[in-house]
């Protein structure tokens, strides 16, 4: 039988048995849609975070104060140490080969107020290198001064929300802002970038790191962000930093260095595992749909005994009948998959409309594997009924 | 016992509904043996279905044991069926997954008669139709004649007043058919009213009252 005839034969069959066709297609479409949707969401989330990470550059090291030799490993959560990590430490790291730029960070919370309006905000003291490393840009006005690490100037950058809440309807540039009893001049407003890996910059204040030392009356750094120039091997730089700090801190190696890569890798692994589990769970529904296909096909073969006997009597071989039945399932499943995939795309489109930041999409391999799994289901579960059909003898055509 | 007065029935069909029963009048007394004959499409099966309360008349009256069945709802008709009527069909209408005894017991199960009593009643009736040793056979293991005898046993197990047989010998060969008719007649002699629809002249002639349906009109011979 030619493929065209095969399709034509099966098409009229599927149309004739509308109820059966609809039910089966509904089930398969549901299963396919569910699996592809789940996998798409998982992948989109993973890619979103991966993008965020990669925007921060790939040659990034983060130094946290504190070290744990405990069996659990992990990063020192509190970041408090007995000996401060200082700007001088940061400056000395800058001298190491392989280091491109160093951004020391002091982090705290304070009360920012303008006249009667006030708000509790996160305050970051850092340098231009920090803004570069975190891909933060200025929407209005100027950025931090070049000497942020050495001179304590009373200038600040404020986040977009803060500008709105404390200054609207006036332009914040050049105006004065009070933070915890100290007065500052607003030099610039950060561009609306919203969240960057958990740090909501819209309500933040950034000042020169030297100024923040004075503001919080402390020399203790929260983090040091280091970007590498690639000229020296990353591992070497890391061990160099450990050695340097150990020397500067009287033999205590009380820092932990985390690479951007390792963080991203860890997160990636988690997401992949989650997506796989969820995808597999969704696929179970396709197995159930397959069982239904087998069940309904077996009944259908029984009901069509006379018709099949007739086909045989007219000269169809076992192979032809087998192919015919399996292709019936394949056509049904392919159509249903198309519907399921289409439905998923509609859902994703709607999701993108409401939450544009996550930019949901379906990876190509998901499409392909969904179709393959569906096909496999069709063939696997219609094999038995098809075999039964193929073994019907032509004599059946004579029965009433 | 049964009284049909000016009964009319129509079947919907395209533009013009078919008038299948036209002004039918018929009185049946207890113990009557009536054959209903006529060409196919004449309405004889329809008539039987009406009397059997399987279908509703559109016009007229149907009195059964003093009850005006034409005024009854389906639930009440079902009750009457179980009470007074026994059916025998051309294609036996036995449930293939149940044994002969279980098939026969079905009306008793519906009447909520406990198992012990049921078994006794079924055994009695199996003897009457001569199938005691086939009690646990399935329909697939019985011959046509035996199947109809099981059907008859089922029809009489609740001791109905009337037996309605629609072409009882239609699927049987001549000798088996004769056996069945003789069995039915013996039941009639014991007091059961017997109505037989048949196209077989030989069988139809054996009845004490003969009714003929032509084109929806009933005439008694």
């Amino acid at each position, binding site marked *: 039988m030619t493929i065209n005839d095969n399709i034509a034969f099966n098409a009229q069959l599927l149309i004739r048995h509308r109820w059966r066709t609809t039910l089966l297609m509904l089930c398969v479409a549901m299963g396919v849609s569910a699996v592809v949707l789940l996998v798409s969401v998982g992948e989109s989330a993973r890619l979103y975070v991966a993008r965020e990470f990669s925007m921060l550059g790939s040659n990034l090291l983060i130094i946290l104060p504190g070290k744990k030799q405990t069996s*659990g490993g992990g990063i020192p959560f509190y*970041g*408090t140490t007995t000996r401060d990590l200082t700007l001088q430490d940061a400056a000395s790291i800058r001298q190491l080969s392989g280091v491109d730029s160093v951004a020391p960070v002091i982090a705290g919370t304070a009360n920012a107020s303008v006249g009667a309006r006030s708000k509790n905000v996160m305050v970051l003291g850092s340098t231009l290198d920090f803004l570069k490393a975190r891909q933060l840009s200025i929407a209005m006005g100027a950025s931090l001064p070049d000497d942020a690490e050495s001179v304590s100037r009373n200038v600040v950058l404020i986040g977009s929300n803060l500008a709105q809440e404390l200054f609207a309807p006036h332009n914040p540039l050049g105006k004065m802002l009070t933070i915890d009893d100290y007065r500052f001049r607003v030099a610039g407003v950060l561009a609306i970038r919203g969240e960057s890996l958990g740090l909501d910059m819209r309500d933040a204040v950034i000042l020169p790191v030297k100024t923040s030392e004075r503001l919080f009356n402390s020399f203790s750094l929260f983090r040091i962000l280091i970007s590498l120039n690639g000229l020296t091997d990353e591992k070497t730089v890391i061990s160099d930093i450990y050695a340097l700090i150990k020397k500067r801190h009287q033999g205590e190696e*009380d820092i932990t260095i985390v690479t951007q890569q390792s963080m991203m890798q860890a997160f990636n692994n988690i997401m992949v595992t989650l997506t796989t589990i969820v995808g597999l769970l969704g696929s179970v529904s396709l197995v159930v749909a397959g069982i239904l296909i087998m069940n309904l096909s077996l009944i259908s073969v029984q009901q069509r005994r006379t018709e099949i006997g007739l086909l045989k009597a007219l000269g169809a071989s076992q192979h032809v009948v087998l192919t015919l039945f399996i292709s019936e399932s394949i056509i049904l499943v392919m159509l249903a998959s198309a519907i399921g995939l289409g439905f998923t795309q509609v859902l994703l489109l709607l999701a993108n409309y409401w939450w544009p930041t996550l930019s949901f999409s379906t990876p190509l391999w998901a499409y392909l594997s969904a179709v393959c799994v569906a096909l496999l289901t069709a063939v696997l579960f219609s094999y038995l009924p098809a075999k039964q059909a193929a073994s019907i003898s032509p004599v059946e055509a004579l029965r009433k | 016992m049964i009284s049909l007065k000016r009964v009319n029935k129509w079947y919907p069909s395209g533009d013009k509904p078919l008038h299948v029963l036209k002004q039918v009048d018929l009185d049946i007394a207890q113990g009557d043996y009536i054959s209903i004959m006529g060409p196919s499409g004449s309405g004889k099966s329809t008539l039987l*279905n009406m009397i059997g309360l*399987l279908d509703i008349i559109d016009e007229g009256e149907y009195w059964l044991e003093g009850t005006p069945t034409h005024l009854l709802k389906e639930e009440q008709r079902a009750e009457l069926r179980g009470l007074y009527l026994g059916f025998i069909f051309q294609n036996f209408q036995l449930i293939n997954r149940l044994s002969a005894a279980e098939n026969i017991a079905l*009306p008793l199960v519906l009447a909520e008669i406990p*198992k012990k009593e049921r078994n006794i009643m079924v055994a009695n009736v199996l003897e009457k139709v001569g199938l005691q040793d086939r009690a646990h056979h399935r329909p697939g293991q019985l011959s046509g004649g035996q199947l109809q005898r099981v059907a008859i046993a089922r029809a009489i197990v609740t001791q109905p007043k009337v037996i309605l047989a629609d072409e009882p010998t239609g699927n049987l060969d001549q000798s088996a058919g004769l056996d069945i008719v003789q069995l039915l007649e013996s039941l009639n002699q014991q007091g059961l009213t017997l109505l037989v629809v048949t196209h077989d002249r030989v069988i139809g002639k054996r009845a004490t009252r003969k009714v003929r349906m032509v084109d929806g009109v009933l005439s008694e011979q």
Partner: protein
Amino acid sequence: MRASDTLSWVKHAVLAQRSRNFLTVLGFAIGISAVTLLAAVGDSLKQYVLSEFTQFGSNIIGVTPGKSDTMGITGILRTNRGITLGDAQSLLTLNEVTGVVPVVAGTAEIKYRNLTRATELVGVSHFAAKAWKLEVAQGQFLPEDHFTHPRAFVVLGSKLHHELFGDYTALGESIRIAGHRFTIVGVLAPKGQFLGMDLDEMAYIPAAKGLSMFNRTSLMEIDLLYSPSLESAYMAGKIREHLIRRHGVEDFTIVTQDQMLDTLDGILNTIRFAGIAIGSISLLVGSVGIYSILTISLWQRRNEVGLLRALGMQQSLLIRLFLAEAIFIALMGGSVGLIVLALVQVTLSTFMPQLPALLTLYSASLGIGVSIFIGALAGAEPAFKASRLPPIAALRAQ
């Protein structure tokens, strides 16, 4: 129809079509397995997380510096408007407060002779033992010293103690932390892990010592114990009042155990719900299976339906019988699904004892209940349709 006859009838009817009903049962069983498995795992996860969090006792309220942070992470950041030892001390004056734990934590190097260990150091008060349910294995916990002028005592976690001293009882020995001498007064019993932090590797010193060691004036958190008969909301209000009087403004956040558990609960419930939703897809397909098979079966048994009506069976009984068939199939599927889960649980737990419960009493009853419900739902339409067939039409079918 009598009950025993009904059961017999339904059983016969379902078993008569063994192959198709077997497949239907199988499909439905997979669906029920999926849903109950995910429900049970969700339950177990919830239990595990909640028990981890409540291991510290329930009448605790946490105060952190800065505003609006439910998880108290802002304690780590620098601030000029912190919460002080003075605040902690003053809270003791409230009648309802039964214990105050000022908290400051970080990492430090602990030295004993030539052994050093960098680990987590937590500055607390003597109330910490009661508040955080810390069991002492040797010696005692920190003594009841003045918050602002405590003696230099330290209590070691069990693992930390073992690493520095082995099996030797170290009570009374001195260790150096960041150059300062501390005397060991106690060793804790093993406690395990909490959110990835090894509690047995920690060392506990008085908060005042911690503050000076970490160069801070502000505590990271103050945990308060209060009498169990009081409502958490009421306590939170009292504490808020008190601290506002001291600070002048509300530059702190108060979190009750209830609030934290509520937030957690919300998150965990969402996860559990999502899991069940995914499982439900399989269940839905399985249900469609029951519906379709029943519809086909009843269609093929039309003349049986007609016969029963001819024999005088009421429509309502007919509906009940076919509904019962559907429920029977669904129940079989549900039972098979649950039994398979139980078997898997038993076999797997011999290799992996920490396996969370795959089957709980709750999830099993959920499974059975859902089976019955879906059976009735899926069987309703076919049953009704079958019962409405006019008897003669049904009988005429071949």
